[in-house]
């Protein structure tokens, strides 16, 4: 008998194995749901698929009778806009300060401890301050995402900058590069794929901050909707919304990975 660490599934059985936990979860849900519904047909905790289907019809296909909008799409658009702004602004901040503190010793001495201290502030703890300062509109939500992930991006990209081999930096100087040219032609292009990697890592936190901000004060958005209908124990709406958010998060991760691979063909092999 071979050791279990040496037994490898074929690609077909790997796919089956991958599907298995999802399938088991589905079965467990169906069993639990029908058992609870048999006892109490009004049960709201594990709604039947027919009920969920009706909720999807109501939220994702039919326009809302009051606003005339299709709620799921309106919520998705609002949330994605906030997320995109938050991520874009954080990326610019991360790249700028990461490179500057990574490559200029005086900037590192002056800014690194400050950024390290900033990154320790729990962003949710200052959410009230953001609402007071920036109001309850879009701005405070975007700012929360930026405050939540920008310090991480700055520190991560500063590390990535410092990790570039010293040989490269010296070589560029012997080719006549000024500090500016060195940044533009040697450091920045090598940090772009690393930025996408860091963004992928911070997507989870970005969603967390987005949903938290929407839950507390908003008029639309995926997080707002979930917390609104929580009052009615409307699991038939909450569950599809959570699935939808998960799907979007997966798609964003996949997109960033694909862009990294196709736009920077040198990156995968550059570790050599």
């Amino acid at each position: 008998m071979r050791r279990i660490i040496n037994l490898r599934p074929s690609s077909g059985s790997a796919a089956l194995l991958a599907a298995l936990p999802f399938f088991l979860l589905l079965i467990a849900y169906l069993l639990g749901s029908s058992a609870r519904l048999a006892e109490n047909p009004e049960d709201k905790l594990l709604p039947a698929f027919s009920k969920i289907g009706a909720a999807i019809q109501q939220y994702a296909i039919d326009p809302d009778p009051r606003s005339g909008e299709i709620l799921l799409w309106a919520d998705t658009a609002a949330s994605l806009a906030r997320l995109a702004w938050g991520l874009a602004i954080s990326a610019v901040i991360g790249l700028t300060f990461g490179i500057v503190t990574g490559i200029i010793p005086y900037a590192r001495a002056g800014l690194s401890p400050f950024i390290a201290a900033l990154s320790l502030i729990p962003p949710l703890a200052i959410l009230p301050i953001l609402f007071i300062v920036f109001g309850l509109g879009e701005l405070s939500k975007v700012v929360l995402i930026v405050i939540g992930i920008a310090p991480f991006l700055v520190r991560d990209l500063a590390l990535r900058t410092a990790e570039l081999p010293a040989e490269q930096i010296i070589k560029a100087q012997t080719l006549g590069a000024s500090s500016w040219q060195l940044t533009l032609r040697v450091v920045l292009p090598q940090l772009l794929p690393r930025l996408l990697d860091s963004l992928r890592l911070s997507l989870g936190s970005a969603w967390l901050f987005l949903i938290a901000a929407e839950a507390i004060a908003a008029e639309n958005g995926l997080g707002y909707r979930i917390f609104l209908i929580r009052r009615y124990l409307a699991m038939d709406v909450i569950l599809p919304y959570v699935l939808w958010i998960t799907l979007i998060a997966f798609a964003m991760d996949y997109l960033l990975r694909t862009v990294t691979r196709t736009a920077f063909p040198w990156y995968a092999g550059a570790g050599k």
Partner: protein
Amino acid sequence: MTTLSIRHLYKEYGEQVVLENVNLEVKDNEFITIVGASGCGKTTFLRMLLGEEEPSRGTFLIDGTPLPNEPGPDRGIVFQRYSVFPHLTVLGNVLLGLELAAATLTGRLFGAQRRAALDQARDMLDSVGLSEAQDKYPHMLSGGMQQRLSIAQSVIKNPKVLLLDEPFAALDPGLSADMHKLILKLWERHKMNIFMITHDLKEGFELGTRLLVFDKVRLDPQAPGRFGATITYDIPLGVTGKKLFDELTTTTQRTERFVDHLAPA
């Protein structure tokens, strides 16, 4: 026409003396190989030539003026590894030096200027035998090809001095002969001064016009950092024999053992 003049050069880090009383006059177009035990200041000497380190005492003149205290385009460098840019193609790596010189703000060339620079870069690649690989990225090249690329990248800037820090140490032994031919060809064509550090005494003998040995004259086990290394042999090449080779092997091994013995486990 480039000359270097080094007089009474010392390099100390606190109590630790790395180099002591180094004196050297270099004429134009010399090919100097540097050998010595590890820990004998070869790399420190090279870093001073680069402008990465400043002498503690003494003078270090290039063409009669003090050496700049940072790296610059008059002194090219090829390290053992990591000295090509992974995000640029082979052609882009060679082009970079020309672009940096001509475009201060963008670091990029366009139109006719770019075409002229591309022609020059392609000629350079041709002379190091990398024309076929011009569109590849460095990670797709073998170690030997990467080193040839790094050499081409530096030589296209026509530096006064080319520094080679054990450039062939990580390569298969079979490749060295080809690399030696290449570097000699470039040295003759571009009329530069070459300083090459090598661990391989045989390589040091075969290449170049002059061999320098860095070694510690005094070995004091009680105060190993008290005495630094200096140039103990300065030999014009072409007049060497087996007896000298054996003598140098013996002395550098003696220091190597001394340094190894003292190094913390």
